[in-house]
């Protein structure tokens, strides 16, 4: 329950942002929340089961495209269109996951990358339907109790969705199924010997992460009133993978913070230079070489040091095994 309390607490703190930020920064933070949430969902797959995917932007983008196409091409109500978008991504994930999780490691990486490129290729080349490189502009936002066309209004909708989805992820992660994901990561031979169906656990993680990505993909499309091929690109998948790594596998909050931070950093850098890929690359190298545990590994280390200091030498001697 501790994690759920922290999520709600953090949500309440973030609710003051519209009172202290300018329009520009509020927009940036709205997007940061979206990408943070995306990374948090991906942590269930990458962090909990250690399946390195380079194609999860596909589910983010598919949902966005599904929603935008339903509204602009078929004149469907935005709320229903949002449902269609999430169902589209979810449906594709349900069909693809059982096949993808049959392979592991490098083959899994290649398959997810190839799958992502298929969706990206369709969006780029099928110009007559998807708008090609131009994407789909002027996607209207849905009507709500309050005005969503107002930056503050949209921020609060985003915040509510993020809190709700994060709570679901958190509860799911500490459920029996969520815990068994960690078992799959630790040793799948042992897990199958214990009677768990390892492949179905992996598929579940894959689908849940895809659904989370889908929800945020829809939200992102509404925020930008636009969806483009960038939302399906493997660079976005790579950025999300990095968020999980920098944040720390399996901590959930780490990837959220890193995902948000990376988006803010990216937006600020893209505005001024062409050096974003360089920074992304350096972050990869630095985090792998110097911080293999990610941001979240720093917290126990700091905590441990404080304990050592207060309890003296004895604790330091016995406390080291938790390192």
């Amino acid at each position, binding site marked *: 329950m501790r994690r759920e309390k922290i999520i709600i607490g953090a949500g309440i703190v973030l609710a003051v942002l519209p009172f202290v930020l300018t329009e520009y920064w509020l927009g940036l933070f709205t997007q940061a929340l979206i990408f943070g949430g995306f990374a948090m969902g991906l942590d269930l797959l990458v962090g909990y089961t*250690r399946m*390195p995917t380079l194609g999860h932007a596909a589910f983010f983008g598919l949902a966005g495209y599904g929603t935008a196409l339903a509204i602009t091409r078929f004149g469907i109500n935005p709320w229903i269109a949002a449902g269609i978008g999430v169902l589209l991504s979810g449906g594709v994930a349900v069909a693809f996951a059982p*096949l*993808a999780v*049959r*392979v*592991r*490691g*490098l*083959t899994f*990486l*290649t*398959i997810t*990358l*190839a*799958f992502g*490129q*298929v969706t*990206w*290729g*369709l969006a780029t*080349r*099928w*110009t007559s339907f998807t708008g090609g490189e131009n994407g789909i502009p002027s996607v209207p936002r849905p009507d709500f109790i309050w005005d969503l066309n107002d930056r503050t209004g949209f921020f609060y909708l985003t915040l509510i969705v993020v809190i709700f989805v994060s709570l679901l992820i958190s509860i799911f992660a500490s459920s029996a199924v969520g815990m068994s994901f960690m078992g799959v990561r630790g040793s799948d031979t042992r897990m199958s010997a214990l009677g768990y169906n390892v492949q179905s656990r992996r598929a579940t993680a894959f689908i849940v992460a895809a659904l989370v990505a889908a929800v945020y993909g829809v939200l992102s499309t509404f925020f930008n009133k636009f969806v483009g091929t960038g939302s399906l690109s*493997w660079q976005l998948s*790579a950025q999300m*993978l*990095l968020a999980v*790594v920098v944040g720390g596998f399996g901590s959930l909050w780490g990837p959220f913070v890193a995902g948000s931070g990376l988006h803010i950093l990216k937006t600020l850098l893209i505005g001024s230079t*062409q*050096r*974003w*890929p*360089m920074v*992304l*690359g*350096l*972050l*990869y*190298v630095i*985090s*792998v*070489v110097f911080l*293999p545990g990610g941001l979240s590994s720093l917290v126990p280390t700091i905590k441990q040091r404080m304990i050592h200091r207060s309890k003296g030498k004895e604790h330091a001697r016995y406390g080291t095994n938790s390192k």
Partner: protein
Amino acid sequence: MRLWVFQILNGLTMGSLLFFVAAGLSVVFGLMRILNLSHGAIFLFGGFVGLAVQKATGSFWLAIPAAMLAAGILGFIIQKVFSTTLMGSRFNQVLLTLGLAFIFNNSILAIWGGAPQTIPAPEILATSVKVLGVTYPAYRLFLIVLAFVAGIGLWFFWERSRLGAIVRACVDDRDMATAMGIRVEIVFATVFTLGAAIAGMAGVLGAPVLGVSIGLDFDVLLLALVVMVVGGVGSLSGAFVASLMVGLVDTFGKALFPELSYFTLFSPVIIILIVRPLGLFGRIPPE
């Protein structure tokens, strides 16, 4: 009919180029279980170095050894500097080399700019030849022939030479090879460097056909990855067959269904990998 011959030749050209990139990637992976995602960037680096040398000297044939040297040095430095991480967990390798790929990509952009460029084919090959009823650029035929010659040459090296036997021994059973007194780390450094050098060469060889431009590195990497897993990691003959297959499927997909070109390339790949995760010729599970 003419169109088919033309497309088949185009597919073989593409496949030949892929073979040079994928061979290094696959053997390095087979040997040390290291997946080098910066291989595509090394390919592009070779292309740009070759371009610079060709511009300075006017010689295409000088550009090739220069690119091989530069790419080889880059490969040597990578495996030297990051050897600990590269030998560590698979996950970290992937992330590290992906990071390097981004860094190289952006450095290339900073040094040579983003405008797509090309290296003209060497004069002696800048003509067209009639083959099977179609007129086809001589340079592209040269590439196909070169890939077959290199394929056969590499096969002999791999299967018949003493050095090849040592590399194969290391691929099959690293511990046993070490026990037999083979210096695995030196074999590894050599193969890694050679793989990078061959990728750099491919960058120059491919330039008259594909050009050199930012973004090509990731396209080529993706195709080479596909070749490697379809052919079976660590298998040279697998890489050869899969290169030609991928080259042909890619070319025909683009020609016949331009709107669905990625779909036509990757759907068969996904199916092959699901049915046969080891790849066509593979013996090592690519995990």
